[in-house]
């Protein structure tokens, strides 16, 4: 086979790109780790495929999940993706902590490998863990909370998932074939220009992030329209649950903040593929444009990550305090204020990059302003708990840890917002400690709280609480040990993204951080154990009534697991926290007087096509396999145009009699269940019907 034919088919892909073979050719510790990681991916894929074949699950996986447009199933698929990527991201973090614990003696990974680790860790945790997790929760919860049949554009929803998956696939493939970028999750040029990184790494970053970003933009559009247009009658804006408000604000941010990332990514691609000079050192490129573009996305992005978590905490704290949310309207205003302000502070990510002091001062003050609405939220949550009947459930443990730790992290944020302080600690581990302090207790704990809270709604049984507590405390202790020392070494002058160091004063702190990494690993393993134990013992935690926590919002008025059509008939809403008000009035489980036929959108291949050919498109572009890129692009375009011309060819109609039969059967079961008091919330006697124990002023 001639060389030119090879490069026509495989582009610049060659045997040296195959990471899983490296251990056999250069068996040093670093390459063994590289190859080991790729074997984990390969074996993971093979074992998953084998299990699916063994249990004959390919058929159900395809027809019930992959081509489904049901928002709940799409949400679950997002969260499965998030959990898989969480495992990889955490393990990479653990390797980095272990490396730096041994960093005084040089450690065991090469500098280049370390750079890839922090680049993939950041990229994965932001784009392929946090984003799918929050998108999944929004998908599952929002249509239920507003009383909708589905999202406004179900096919588009599936397409968004496909695009996100294709981005994640590219990052996973980069572990097996070729290297990843060493430019950090921000991929600042000119270091990411071909002069410095000619290989495939930066291209993996560009296409993974661009494809996933496109998916997120479409998700944002979908949910803004869903929330504004699909609300049940009577569900006015100010009767929307607080999670839905946060989801609305997040979706608006997605619509307006993802485009700068797309622009920055495509400009960088133009530089790399076509020899443009947007950000190069030579011929008039200007890298400051990249810094501005990236952070015009990047700063709203941190609010995209945190707002859904704020929403979860709002629901969790109100429910487990047995009270309506204190200061609901102020929380709504605070949410929208944060969303608005988030667009005006991007420059604080590069105070040290050459603006004059006045500009820095303006952005510093704007940054501190965000502390005000955030403070309002914290006080509202505390006031919600005040004189509430608090149950320290697993989601509540996460929420309480969040309230303490997030405030700490917020205070270090206020420090960093001051440009004069920022000049001292920028680019040190102090900053790394700060944003992990926001994102772990903020986003990750919020997502895990939401996962625990809504799990019974989706699957019809509760998660095991004992393992839940162990996981929660492992996360909290692990977070504390792993990141608090980084504040100290950061102040002592240790720069971020550094593979090793020579100052022996750093070492004790890094040893403590390494111990924290151990606890985080335990937390990750515990989550897996919890899932296993919960599935094994599901008969003991059945959620028949659909309301295991005596909760307040509309999603808990439906059966668990929720039928595809969500509600038997349209709910009409007469109050904030409508379900809580109805339960207090003794009308928790009513039967509709009449039913009508329900129309649902048909399944679609759009998501699968987007995932497969999106991945192929990215892979073709990364490795310069132009035939593959063009082919994939053509398939994507033709299938979308065909879908537009043909429309939904398999819409589903569920007859009114069938809906009535199912709903009545459920009501029968609910009436047979003994309602439980909150004292038995985690007992096997809790079958999801709450006893009325105490009244609290009804909302109106």
């Amino acid at each position, binding site marked *: 086979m001639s060389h030119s034919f090879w490069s026509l088919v495989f582009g610049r892909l060659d045997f040296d790109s195959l990471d899983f073979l490296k251990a056999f050719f250069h068996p040093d510790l670093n390459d063994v780790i590289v190859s080991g990681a790729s074997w984990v991916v390969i074996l993971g894929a093979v074992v998953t495929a084998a299990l699916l074949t063994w249990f004959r699950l390919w058929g159900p996986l395809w027809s019930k999940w992959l081509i489904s447009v049901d928002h709940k199933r799409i949400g679950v698929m997002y969260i499965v993706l998030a959990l898989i990527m969480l495992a990889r991201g955490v393990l990479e973090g653990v390797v980095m902590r272990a490396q730096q614990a041994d960093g005084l003696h040089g450690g065991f990974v090469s500098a280049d490998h370390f750079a890839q680790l922090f680049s993939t860790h950041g990229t994965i945790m932001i784009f392929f863990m946090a984003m799918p997790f929050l998108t999944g929760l929004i998908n599952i919860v929002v249509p239920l909370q507003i009383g909708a049949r589905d999202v*406004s*554009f179900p096919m588009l929803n599936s397409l968004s998932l496909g695009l996100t998956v294709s981005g994640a696939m590219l990052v996973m493939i980069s572990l097996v074939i070729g290297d990843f970028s060493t430019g950090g999750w921000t991929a600042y040029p000119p270091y990411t220009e071909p002069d410095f990184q000619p290989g495939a790494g930066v291209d993996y970053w560009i296409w993974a992030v661009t494809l996933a970003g496109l998916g997120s*933009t479409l998700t*944002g*559009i979908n949910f803004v*329209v869903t929330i*504004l*247009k699909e609300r049940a*009658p009577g569900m006015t804006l100010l009767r929307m649950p607080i999670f839905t408000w946060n989801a609305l604000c997040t979706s608006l941010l997605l*619509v*307006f903040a*993802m*485009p*700068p990332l*797309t*622009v920055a990514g495509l*400009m960088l691609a*133009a530089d790399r593929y*076509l020899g*443009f*000079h*947007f950000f*190069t050192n*030579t*011929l*008039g*490129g*200007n890298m400051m*444009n990249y810094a501005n*573009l990236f952070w*015009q996305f990047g700063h709203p992005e941190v609010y995209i990550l945190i707002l859904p978590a704020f929403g979860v905490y709002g629901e969790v704290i109100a429910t487990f305090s047995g009270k309506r949310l204190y200061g609901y309207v102020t929380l709504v205003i605070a949410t929208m204020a944060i969303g608005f302000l988030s667009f005006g502070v991007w420059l604080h990510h590069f105070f040290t990059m050459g603006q004059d002091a006045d500009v820095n001062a303006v952005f510093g003050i704007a940054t501190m302003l965000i502390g005000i609405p955030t403070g309002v939220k914290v006080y509202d949550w505390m006031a919600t708990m005040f004189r509430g009947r608090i149950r320290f459930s697993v989601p509540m443990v996460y929420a309480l840890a969040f309230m303490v730790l997030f405030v700490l992290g917020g205070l270090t944020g206020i420090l960093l917002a001051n440009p004069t302080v920022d000049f001292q600690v920028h680019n040190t581990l102090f900053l790394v400690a700060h944003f992990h302090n926001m994102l772990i207790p903020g986003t990750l704990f919020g997502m895990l709280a939401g996962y625990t809270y809504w799990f019974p709604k989706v699957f019809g049984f509760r998660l095991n609480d004992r393992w839940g507590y162990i996981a929660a405390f492992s996360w909290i202790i692990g977070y504390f040990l792993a990141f608090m020392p980084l504040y100290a070494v950061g102040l002592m002058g240790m720069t971020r993204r550094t593979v090793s160091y020579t100052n022996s004063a750093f070492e004790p702190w890094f040893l403590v951080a390494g111990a924290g990494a151990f606890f985080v690993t335990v937390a990750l393993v515990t989550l897996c154990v919890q899932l296993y134990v919960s599935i094994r013992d599901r008969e003991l935690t059945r959620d028949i009534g659909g309301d295991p926590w005596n909760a307040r919002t*509309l999603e808990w*008025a439906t059966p668990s697991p929720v039928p595809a059509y969500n509600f038997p*008939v*349209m*709910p*009409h809403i*007469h*109050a904030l*926290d*409508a*379900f*809580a*008000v*109805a339960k*207090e*009035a003794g*009308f928790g489980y*009513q*039967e509709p*007087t*009449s*039913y*009508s036929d329900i*129309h649902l959108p048909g399944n679609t291949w759009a998501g699968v096509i987007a995932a497969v050919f999106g991945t192929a498109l990215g892979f073709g572009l990364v490795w310069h396999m132009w035939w593959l890129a063009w082919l994939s692009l053509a398939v994507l375009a033709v299938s979308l*145009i065909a879908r*537009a*011309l043909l*429309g939904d060819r398999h819409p589903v109609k569920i007859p009114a009699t069938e809906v009535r039969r199912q709903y009545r059967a459920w009501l029968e079961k609910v009436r047979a269940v003994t309602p439980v008091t909150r004292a038995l919330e985690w007992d096997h006697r809790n079958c999801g019907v709450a006893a009325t124990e105490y009244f609290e002023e*009804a909302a109106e």
Partner: protein
Amino acid sequence: MNVIARSLGLTWVAEYDHEHDRAASALSGFWLFMMSDLIIFGLMFATYVTMLTPMSFAGGPTPKELFELPGAALETAALLTSTYTFGMASLAIKFDRGLGKVKSWLLITLALGLVFLALEIREFAHMVAEGAVPQRSGFLSAFFGLVPLHGVHVTAGVTWLVMMLIQINRTGLTGSAKSRIARLALFWHFLDLIWVGIFSVVYLGGIA
């Protein structure tokens, strides 16, 4: 028992037909998409403006040397006229002037869109022949990031227009076709607005 006085909170009422606001949802979604797209154009404009410095010209051609009004004016004329003709098509739909009228206005719009694209490609070819390629300088990179991006949008609009002509030829002016043409019209006028920006900032600003 004062249950009656309490708000019920929640009542279940058999559904009324929700189909009628599908078109409204689609239109809202499309507005949001255009807002998102407008951000992309805004950032391309911002990048272009920051690249209007001697450093970014990098010794290469400057806007004054490159741009000439007649070509840009012709492109502008073609695009602005096409917006007028699309408006006529929308009016023909609104006042039920028949499928024939709608089709002919849309065909004229399509022709004008193609004329615009041809003029634009001719201009780019001319620039490339002069050595004003995007690889020459940061300024030219920004130009070729902004103006062809608009061209790509017009190409997408033209493709969409062809699809709509096929659809109304097959099914007539159904509800779905009308709602799609309404969105396409929005898109078309949006691209016109962007072009007004390009004409003012890039061409008039460049020559001034």
